[in-house]
């Protein structure tokens, strides 16, 4: 259970979700499906309330909150607006390399803006031909005096075109996975350009585009960690990032369950609320069991992380279990709402579309199984 302080924080998140997120989500997601719409002001509001910097240490301008509390905040946000929760998780991922591997000077220069929400980040790892296989990336950062010159193309980049900085992984030598380095590229760097937003199945307010680096010059002082340390930084960040996605998927599933339970109480057939039929009760019970077990897996991994213990396997388990739960629960929520669930008059169909991506990004669930399997056989 969270401390009093943690509970106050979760209460604050609920209040902001109720007043700022829920009234806007339906229209914003609909608008973003056909045009461009990005909830910048929502991220600013979350930043002002301190919700973008919970897990980072206090000396960096964060709040030193345990991951256990931070993830519950992400879950709350996701139950109101999945795109924003994913955005919070992505943003945390972009600050993670600086907070964990940056020098004190880099932390002093970069973290205040990142953690206050004044600056939004994007995480440039995937490429068109290098998705799960990170080590095959071809984007290259060539050293030129006290600068790097970056050339290449990144794909599936959340916040691209809206972000203030791009935490970018690029090849500094041909040494496979050991030849990657991490650089923080400011949005106004010359040579940085973006593709058209991807036309996705859902999560429309999470703008995703390609990012092109056309001889982008970055000061060597913006390299995080050593040359060649990029792969280790990326994988370490992803362990933490997976927990963010697991928490967000749990919140999405909770939102779908709440919707279905509310509908089952109000909708009457054969002279009674449909929730009084055992057929629907069992459906709701299985949804509840899936949500509760999803939450348990991410909290378990978070507690290990908070205690400074290894949590890589548990993070993969949480990502796998929570996102599969989200897929199942959102599908069942559409079923509980019947024909109404299949219309855009209710958010059930949106929840279902949003759940699908959680099984894919931040490492597909097949990759999670590889990670888990490797740990089991170790």
């Amino acid at each position, binding site marked *: 259970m969270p401390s009093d*302080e943690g509970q*106050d*924080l979760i209460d*604050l998140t609920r*209040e*902001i979700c109720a007043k700022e997120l829920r009234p806007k989500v339906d229209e914003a997601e609909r608008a973003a499906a056909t045009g461009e719409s990005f909830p910048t002001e929502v991220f600013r*509001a979350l930043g*002002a*309330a*301190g*919700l973008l910097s*919970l897990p980072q240490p206090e000396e960096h301008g964060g*709040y030193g909150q345990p991951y256990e509390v931070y993830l519950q905040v992400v879950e709350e946000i996701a139950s109101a607006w999945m795109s924003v929760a994913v955005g919070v998780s992505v943003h945390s991922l972009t600050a993670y390399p600086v907070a964990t591997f940056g020098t004190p000077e880099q932390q002093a220069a970069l973290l205040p803006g990142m953690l206050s929400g004044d600056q939004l980040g994007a995480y440039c790892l995937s490429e068109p031909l290098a998705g799960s296989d990170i080590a095959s990336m071809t984007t290259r950062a060539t050293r030129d005096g006290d600068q790097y010159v970056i050339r290449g193309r990144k794909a599936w980049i959340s916040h691209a075109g809206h972000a203030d900085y791009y935490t970018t992984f690029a090849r500094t030598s041909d040494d496979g996975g050991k030849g990657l380095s991490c650089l923080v590229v400011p949005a106004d760097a010359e040579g940085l350009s973006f593709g058209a937003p991807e036309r996705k199945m859902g999560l429309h307010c999470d703008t995703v585009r390609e990012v092109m680096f056309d001889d982008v010059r970055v000061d060597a002082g913006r390299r995080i960690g050593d040359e060649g340390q990029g792969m280790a930084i990326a994988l370490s960040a992803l362990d933490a990032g997976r927990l963010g996605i697991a928490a967000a998927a749990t919140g999405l599933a909770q939102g779908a369950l709440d919707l279905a339970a509310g509908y089952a109480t109000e909708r009457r057939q054969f002279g009674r609320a449909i929730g009084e039929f055992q057929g629907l009760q069992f459906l709701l019970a299985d949804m509840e069991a899936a949500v509760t077990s999803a939450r348990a897996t991410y909290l378990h991994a978070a507690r290990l992380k908070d205690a400074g213990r290894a949590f890589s396997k548990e993070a993969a388990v949480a990502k796998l279990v929570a996102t599969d739960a989200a897929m199942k629960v959102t599908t069942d929520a559409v079923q509980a709402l019947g024909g109404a669930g299949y219309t855009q008059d209710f958010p059930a169909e949106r929840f279902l579309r949003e759940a699908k991506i959680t099984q894919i990004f931040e490492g597909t669930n097949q990759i999670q199984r590889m990670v888990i399997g490797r740990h089991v056989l170790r």
Partner: protein
Amino acid sequence: MNIVVCVKYVPDSQSERTFQESDNTVDREATDGLLSELDEYAVEEALKIVEARGGGEVTVLTVGPAAAADAIKKALQMGAHRGVHVQDDAIHGSDAVATSLVLAEAVKKATDGSPELVLTGMASTDGTMGVVPAMMAERLGLPQVTYASELTVGDGTVTIRRDGDTASETVEASLPALVSVTDQINEPRYPSFKGIMAAKKKPVDTWSLADLGLEASQVGLDAAWTTVVTFAQRPPRAQGQIVTDEGEGGAKLAEFLSAQKFL
């Protein structure tokens, strides 16, 4: 400038609220309580005044049961500097007259008898009497400047705009004064996490009736000038009237709207 903001702890207006059978007072067990939304505007306005003037303290004052500490906590999280909680079992069931007496005495004690500015919301979201500000002003001997949709603190004066149905009045009063504010005056801030952590270190005084020099006989259900005799749940909304269009649907609709005085 030091400001006292009077706030009330009320049952959440978004939830099902009811009275308890035993003495026809609000059932506080049945629903969660919180800082009355209408009082958040008064807290916000006080914070804005102090911030703009670059100095002064905002004291948030409430009269209520132990759980009312939550209302003070919320105001402290928003940025108020200290809290005063008047808590005494004898106060249970007090009407507006007695509430204004306790509040007025607490304002005096909190300001050593010389308040500069007292702010309140326009009404509570539960009782919605809206008379406590006027009663307090009378008891404190302060100008009562009510329903402010805009508030300017000048040199020794306050000026407000009061929006009516047909006209807006601009009203000026000398300080010290008591001002009640409407929900049009500002947009209350959310606490920040920094505010949440800081609130835990802020001082909150808890006073009893005796601390205020008041007797139990002056307050509570027995001293109330008005009594809730009976209560009933509002009946669920009756089913609407369905007009089937058999050629004269438009006329029937117009007839209905006209009977309801919409036309």
